[in-house]
């Protein structure tokens, strides 16, 4: 800044200068350390779970079991990325569950022959994958337009959308299950490279890419700004509506990819994929346990990933421990609540609010 010998502001600046310079040079290592601890808040819990699992069953810490867990949580993980993006802008989307089921269902219906309850169009499976993405984008666009442009409440819009999508999904195949999926279509969910499932690799790439995007890309930063304070973001000239709309579309497309993985893993699409297993509850649980704030503006992919892994480990441990079938959901739910409390204790005020 230029010299302003006349302005008393300069003398004030002199007094503050030491502090300002210290701040500029010092790069506050302690603050960085704290944020690292916050991000890795769930790490100790994951370690404890690994130890518990290893003690409970010798099959737990084997390559095949771990890669099995990886395959199981991949689909959930991709949907969690989508929901986290939407939570970060201060929204919420219940209908990711419906998209997760409907998108692969529509594509599969166009691909498989009539004998497997398909439409008989016999679409090329590679085009089918594009259809999956297109259905996701379309659902996200409708949600986004209703919420952002129509200024409707996101909870109610996506609740209604969930029901519509589930109805479409059931109606298209009239309750039947689509099978005989071509291998190009199931590759993402079913294939392995060595002992590593492809879905796990893709999910890991999606997590890392989204994490880097959120941290370093200007649109990623705009997502944090919009979620942290929408009015301030608007005042700073950010195209708030466009960012929100884009995130709803991206979130739905990720849910569609998750659905594609699940369809490949079980190599079939039922009329109830998604809401049968109530996947949206696991999605919210993983995101919130991982420190993504329901208020918007706070959270990151490291946290979201640890939330997903935690849920996967708990599920696997319960399976291996032969937890009684009738009680498994109660135990599952209780573990989620405990994990939330732990995440809050470790991550501090801002976590799990």
């Amino acid at each position, binding site marked *: 800044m230029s010299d*302003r010998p006349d302005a*008393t502001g300069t003398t004030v600046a002199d007094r503050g*200068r030491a502090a300002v310079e210290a701040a*500029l040079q*010092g790069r506050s290592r302690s603050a960085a350390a704290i944020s690292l601890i916050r991000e890795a808040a769930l790490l100790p819990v994951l370690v404890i779970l690994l130890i518990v699992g290893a003690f409970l069953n010798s099959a737990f810490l084997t390559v095949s079991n771990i890669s099995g867990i990886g395959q199981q949580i991949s689909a959930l993980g991709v949907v969690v990325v989508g929901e986290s993006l939407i939570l970060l802008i201060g929204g919420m989307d219940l209908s990711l569950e419906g998209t997760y089921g409907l998108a692969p269902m529509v594509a599969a219906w166009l691909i498989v022959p009539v004998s497997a309850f398909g439409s008989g169009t016999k679409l090329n499976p590679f085009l089918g994958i594009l259809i999956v993405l297109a259905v996701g984008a379309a659902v996200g666009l409708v949600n986004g337009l209703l919420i952002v442009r129509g200024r409707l409440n996101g909870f109610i819009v996506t609740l209604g959308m969930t029901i519509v999508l589930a109805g479409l999904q059931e109606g298209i195949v009239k309750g039947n299950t689509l099978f005989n999926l071509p291998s190009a279509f199931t590759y993402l969910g079913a294939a392995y490279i060595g002992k590593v499932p492809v879905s796990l690799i893709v999910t890991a790439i999606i997590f890392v890419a989204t994490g880097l995007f959120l941290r370093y890309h200007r649109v990623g930063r705009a997502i*944090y700004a919009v979620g*942290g304070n929408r009015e301030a973001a608007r005042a700073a000239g950010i195209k708030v509506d466009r960012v929100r709309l884009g995130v709803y579309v991206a979130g739905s497309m990720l849910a569609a990819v998750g659905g594609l993985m699940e369809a490949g893993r079980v190599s079939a699409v039922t009329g109830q994929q998604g809401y049968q297993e109530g996947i949206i509850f696991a999605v919210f649980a993983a995101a919130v346990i991982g420190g993504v704030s329901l208020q918007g503006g706070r959270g990151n992919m490291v946290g979201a990933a640890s939330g997903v892994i935690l849920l996967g480990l708990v599920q696997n441990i319960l399976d291996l421990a032969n937890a009684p079938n009738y009680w498994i959901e109660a135990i599952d739910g209780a573990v989620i609540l405990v994990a939330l409390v732990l995440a809050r204790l470790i991550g501090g005020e801002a976590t799990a609010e």
Partner: protein
Amino acid sequence: MTETATPAAPAAAPAAEAAGIYKQFGSTLALRGVDLTLWPGRCLGLVGRNGAGKSTLVSILSGIYPADSGAVRFDGQPAPAHGDTGVWRRRIATVFQHSMVVPELTVAENVFLGRQPLRAGRVDWRGMRAQAAQVMAEWGFAIDVRLPCADLTVEQRQIVEIARALAAGTRCLLLDEPTATLERGAIERLFARVRQLAASGVAVLYISHHLEEVFEICQDVAVLRDGELVLTSPVPQLTKDDLVTAMIGAGPGTEVGASTQYDTGTRTETGKSTGNGAGPARAAPCLVVDDVSAELPGGRVSSVSLDVRPGERVGLTGLLSAGVSSLARIAAGAEPYTAGQVLVDGQRLVPGRRDLALRLGVGYIPEDRQRDGFVAPLGVAENATMTITDWLASMLGFIRPRARAAAAAPFARGLSIISAGLGQPVAELSGGNQQKVTVARALARKPRLIVAITPTRGVDVASKALLLAELAAVTERTGAGLLLATDELDDLVICDRVIVLLRGERFTEFAEPPFDREALIAAGEGILRPAKGDTS
């Protein structure tokens, strides 16, 4: 304070009385030993500038806050305990500036809100309607009590609130800036009603920013200044000048900024060279507001025109409700307008498109920094550079944190932003430093025009001086225009000229510094008082 306002016929005890009221908020002493007496059948005007303590006094009289010390009495009896709202309501009723009726309920329900007459444990609807109608008839208010309040005009809602007070048996009424949202005709009718109420023995406390209203309907007037009651007098013994002087405190002829020392050093040169000089080299204005009208929640703007030239600093002031911040928000692209047009560097500003305004070169320092000024969980550097992410990003849109810090550092230095590092969340900074971050965000994009609304509000004295000096320096250095909308007159010291708005319209302009404090305040109240300063 000596009681000079003894009523002609002191019927009995005063209707309401505040004695030696002290009230402190944090480190601010809002009221320091205020005595105020309301007599039955008289209307007492309460005036004072923003922050003088009027609202605090109203809140204490209506039982919203307890006083730290001192006593409130009604009809000579001690006031009910704090929190005993029902009893307070029967003693004193307040009609606030913003309507407190429930729009979904009918007039009758609103009149008896919270104390519906019961019969056999159930609401006696018929009785309630009859009683409400009776109150309306008694006072000559013509409103159908079965209508939902949502269908009423602003004026009618106010009548409902008054009727609610009267139905509760209140003989003591506080009207807090009741005319702020009313049209001319409605104001006249309100005055007739207030006179009628006073004539029937109701004690009225009338709070207003418009001094002419006080002269029109009040018998007595009390002036608050810095939490003290500095004058109480029957109205006929005073002139408007006396009132203005009492509100301001200093003798006549004070200039803005005289008490605080800041000087941009180069004012005179700029004022002549780029600003108001009548030379042929007058640059084209960077902001043209042409006959703009808008109806906004923060105040109406009607047919206002003004322009700001490069390097020129134009002040915009007036009362809070006069449309000052509305007009500034419109110029910043933060609010839409319905008529007229706004040009920035000759290009039309699309109404309400802040993102486009930013790209046209409008830097914006919003009024409410908590709401609009920064994203609390994000860091200092990120907030300060939020307007220039497109400049910082690579071809693919990625931003290196180091480039961001480098871009923010000059502003952190120049504005002395004190933080534990440029990554520290702005939420953790002090108010003054938060405001500096907001200013940095506005300046980062090298604006052609800076729109600043109350940029020094709630900021400590040192930061205030620094912010004003920096705004002045930036306009000197870069030739940016500045539109400074404020109700803090000391801010106007950096301006080349000052435009005063009244009820959303352009009222007058002070063409040349120094600006006379009293004349500015009087103009804000709607009184033209050419002091020795040059006014037009």
